[in-house]
């Protein structure tokens, strides 16, 4: 142990971040650069990051903007093929458009689908996307939350919570759904109880909140096979929570990288 209680080799533990982003060409943020993402991951010993560039705030953007976002991910994959895996961001609805975009993304080396809050995931408009994910054996990462404050509810009327994930998961038991950021601000205890009986929904541990006990509760409610280490850009929080959690070494390994490696191995075509 080091003097501050962290294991000396905490950086050396293999880590795969299931939920991360690279800069969006639509809304560049000062100081947020792709090289900075790699540098930050190096500081924390994160080997691989699954990245996406979604269009947020529920905006129904034209396909040209969706392509620009996914181009940023494709470019990142080309630059750092060993460090990044890509989620293809899609807006459900226009089937010709999203099918074409998904094919382009998968041809370019992406490994999953990312959905945001344009539609709730219980909406039938999602069904063909879930069927396509099953066909390819790729996961769908979904922006998620069960916000309790009126401001977030008003701002994100179509945000999906665990009940929406479960509805889609029950209709398609073969699909792998990743519910994003359990510590992203919503009522996480409610979410955990909803997800217990939906075995094809896995959770990622990202989010800026660091509530003590979250990770242990995730594992206790869902089992260690259904929990993924992730940061969603809250990088010290993401690593620190999993380091802190009172878990067996074997379970912690599943969170750090084992589960996401297993999900990646489900790829069919």
């Amino acid at each position, binding site marked *: *142990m*080091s*003097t*501050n*209680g*962290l294991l000396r080799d*905490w950086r050396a533990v293999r880590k795969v971040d299931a939920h991360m982003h690279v800069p969006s060409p639509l809304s560049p943020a000062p*100081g*947020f650069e792709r090289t*900075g*993402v790699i*540098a*930050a991951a190096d*500081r*924390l010993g994160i080997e691989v990051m699954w990245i996406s560039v979604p269009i947020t705030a529920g905006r129904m953007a034209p396909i040209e903007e969706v392509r620009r976002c996914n181009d940023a991910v494709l470019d990142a994959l080309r630059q750092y093929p060993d460090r990044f895996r890509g989620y293809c961001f899609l807006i459900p609805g226009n089937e010709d458009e999203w099918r074409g975009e998904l094919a382009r993304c998968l041809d370019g080396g992406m490994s999953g689908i990312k959905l945001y809050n344009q539609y709730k995931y219980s909406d039938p408009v999602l069904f063909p996307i879930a069927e396509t994910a099953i066909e390819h054996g790729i996961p769908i990462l979904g922006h998620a*939350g069960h*916000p*309790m*404050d009126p*401001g*977030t509810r008003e701002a994100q009327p179509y945000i999906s919570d665990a009940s929406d994930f479960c509805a889609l998961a029950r209709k398609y038991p073969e699909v792998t759904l990743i519910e994003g950021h359990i510590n*992203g*601000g*919503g*009522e*996480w*205890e409610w979410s955990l109880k909803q997800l217990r009986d939906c075995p094809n929904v896995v959770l990622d541990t990202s989010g*800026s*909140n*660091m*509530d*003590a*006990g979250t990770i242990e509760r995730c594992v206790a409610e869902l089992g260690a096979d259904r929990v993924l280490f992730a940061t969603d*850009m*809250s*990088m*010290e*929080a993401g*690593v*620190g*929570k999993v*380091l*802190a*959690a009172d878990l067996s070494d074997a379970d912690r390994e599943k969170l750090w990288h084992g589960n996401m490696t297993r999900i990646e191995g489900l790829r069919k075509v």
Partner: protein
Amino acid sequence: MIVDVNAHWGPYAFRHLPDHDGPGLMRLMDRWGVDHALLCSNPSLLYRDAHQGDVEMSRAITPHPRRFSGVATINPAYPGWNRDLETALDDWNFRAVRLVPQFHGYALTDPCADALAAECARRDVPILFMQQVEDRRQMHPWDRAENLAIEPVLAFARRHERVRICLCNWLGLGGRELTDAGLDGRVLIDLARFDVVLFRSLPQLIDEIGLGAIAFGSQAPFNYIPPALIRLECLDLSEEDQERVAWKNAAEFFSLERTILHYNSQKEKA
């Protein structure tokens, strides 16, 4: 040596809190290498008479003066706050005062807040403000405490230029706004929610206001402690500067030197 300036004692009404009592907190601190913690009482947030929450906390922590120092949660809009303050500072040796207008239902512009600030200035006792206890997005339906905005705190600081202020559990602070409010040299900010490796908000704050204004804080037991340890480690400071953030700045700000040095010598003997 680590001093945690953002730590909390007691049960919280809206969520199960692991390790919230004295033995639990000491277990956590031992596990993660935290030597001393400044504690605020959780019951004091919601009791009608906040002082009763401090009474409970003082009973729990008084046997452990080397590990814990108390912070008095004072409601200046409640009768008898002056006597509560005296009890906390003089009888229990509490090291600071916490104001939580977002829980106690007054404004920092109210005359009662100014009266308390004047007393704290006279006694040279720091006042601690927290932006939030919990993220509003996960609030219990009965938890109506909005995040504290920085503007009224800065206005308060401008009006009371002799009051030293500790800001815990904040996000989005800019060094320039703190300096403009005259807080240079009289503010201490905990690192619990600042980013170091990606967006670098903490290194930027240090550039703007100086290393002497930063202290270790975790918001234990609400939060896991290791994220704060990682932030401290990733600052990549010299050993001397890391010690300042880890404990020396806090020790100086809250006059903990004697307590900590004694504890340290005991630890070395052990």
